[in-house]
């Protein structure tokens, strides 16, 4: 029974990682940028929820505002910071992404102090638990898993079945050729950022409902772990991000359950290094041959 409850625990954590990893993977797939600021968008989402619910906004509306806020921040960052560097070397883009991540963290710290704030998790998802024959399943776990799986299915349909999804796949396959076919590259990239950060917004609400806290640096480690999940699954691959997210979630819960909770971060990064050593393209990624 303990094993089963740990499995559900891993499923909950894994689905949050998967949601965040999807954002990384989509952005990397389309402009080959490792968006360091993605984790911090989640942090911004957490603060938006704390502030709006604190101001008396209805929790359901607050969740919508959180998701919209994440989308706006992300699209703005893409327009202001990443777009001027479209043709710049990769290293410039990467340094800019680090800069944006630092900026978001420190702006929040400047305005709201570095203190950890309580997140109104019970206002969003009531603290209820179902008893399934000795196995306790909290409502928040159930909601997390259902919402995550729902978002992933929605994303899959969007990418595979719609025109915009087709355009996104085309840009990720070959930006130049896609442009020649009349696809508005900038619009597609903006929409990719918007979708990725909407998922991050959902992830933010679910993550904070699990841990009930918000602080300015909460996003960086969550973001890094989600990135590891994306690499593990194969960066740029949507199903890969989901598989990687669940794998990292389970690994973390397993390490904690075995009594090594101080080592979870080290284990996650060790997994990353092992993956890169053995199969750099990840579990579901396709190998890319170099063009001369």
């Amino acid at each position: 029974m303990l094993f089963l409850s740990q499995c559900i625990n891993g499923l909950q954590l894994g689905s949050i990682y998967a949601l965040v990893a999807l954002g990384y993977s989509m952005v990397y797939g389309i402009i080959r940028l490792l968006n360091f600021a993605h984790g911090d968008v989640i942090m911004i989402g957490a603060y938006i929820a704390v502030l709006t619910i604190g101001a008396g906004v209805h929790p359901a509306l607050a969740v919508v505002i959180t998701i919209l806020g994440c989308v706006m921040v992300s699209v703005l960052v893409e327009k202001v910071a990443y777009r001027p560097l479209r043709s710049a070397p990769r290293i410039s883009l990467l340094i800019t992404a680090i800069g944006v991540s630092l900026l978001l963290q420190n702006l929040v710290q400047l305005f709201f102090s570095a203190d950890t704030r309580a997140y109104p998790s019970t206002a969003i998802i009531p603290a209820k638990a179902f008893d399934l024959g000795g196995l306790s399943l909290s409502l928040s776990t159930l909601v997390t898993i259902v919402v995550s799986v729902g978002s992933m299915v929605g994303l899959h349909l969007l990418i595979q079945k719609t025109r915009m999804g087709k355009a996104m796949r085309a840009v990720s396959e070959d930006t130049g050729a896609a442009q020649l076919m009349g696809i508005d590259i900038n619009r597609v990239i903006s929409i990719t950022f918007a979708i990725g950060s909407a998922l991050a917004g959902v992830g933010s609400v679910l993550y904070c409902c699990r841990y009930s806290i918000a602080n300015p640096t909460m996003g960086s480690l969550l973001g890094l772990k989600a990135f590891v999940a994306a690499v593990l699954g194969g960066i740029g691959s949507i199903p890969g991000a989901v598989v990687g997210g669940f794998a990292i979630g389970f690994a973390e819960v397993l390490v904690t359950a075995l009594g090594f909770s101080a080592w979870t971060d080290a284990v996650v990064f060790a997994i990353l290094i092992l993956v890169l050593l053995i199969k750099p393209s990840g579990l579901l990624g396709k190998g890319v041959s170099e063009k001369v």
Partner: protein
Amino acid sequence: MDKAVRPYRQIPVYLRYLINTALLVILLAAGSALLASGTVNRAQSAVILQIGIYALLAVSLNVATGYLGQLPLGHAGFMAVGAYTAALIWKALPGKSLGVILLGLLAAGLLAAVFGVVIGIPALRLKGDYLAIITLGFGEIIRVLIINLPGVTGGTPGLMNIPKHSSFLVVYATVILSCALIHTLMKSRHGRAILAIRENEIAAEASGVNTTFYKVLAFTVSAFFAGVAGGLYAGYTGILTPGNFTFMTSVNILVMVVLGGLGSMAGSIIAAGILTALPLALQSFNKYRMVIYALLLIVVMIFKPSGLLGRYDFSLTRIIEKAINGRLFPRKGKAGEEHA
């Protein structure tokens, strides 16, 4: 143009070395005399030492970022390896002899270099972004290791009572020697190979450069000097805690390199000096420091991606050469006459 072109007179190589060595020795002597005379107070001399240490960190990161064109984000990890190695050696060996200090710094550099090889070989087989993430992961693993091995490293409270070996002379002699070594490496054929990889990896490989070897070499050299700088840091603070070596430390060093100019040693040193002295000089600045650093990173990348000095490097002998040839201030329209 019937006027004969005057030959460009050059300073002989041995004379160049003499000029530079003499100047640096004078600089060292003047610095220690200034500190010994008591005209600078304790706080100021602490800033001077910190500038030296951060300058070495920035110069060492510049080898991997500016010269090799990769982006390691775990520089604080190498620094931590060096710092703890030197600290443990110095704590074990009593005395303040030159041999002990050198042993500590060398061991610090060597162990960091070993980590550099171990991390570099897998990381450098992959392209750009993965190196950033793998080194970032490495930096975090080192920190978790330090926290979870209290028997060796003192754990979270830290390692205390480290002998304070980092005097002005030790710090700046090490910095100057390290910079000279890195400089000569970069001017040698090995350095040219590293630059060739930065410019175009495929072309370099086609020209017979062993790209994997030189990438790992540059990365290891970078790690070595980060380790040495870590050793100096341990001898300067006397206390080491894992909190000294977070991701933010790596980013601080990166900001110095980016601001100074990717590939410019002089730029790294100047930026390290400014960014270390500024927060200490302006207390109120500290609150906004990280916001400004972050904005600097973004703005520099968008408007001047090569950094403030670009790839320019200061050379005293080049200036003297220009002066004796009367070309210190070249007139317009005669730029074609300039020798490279």
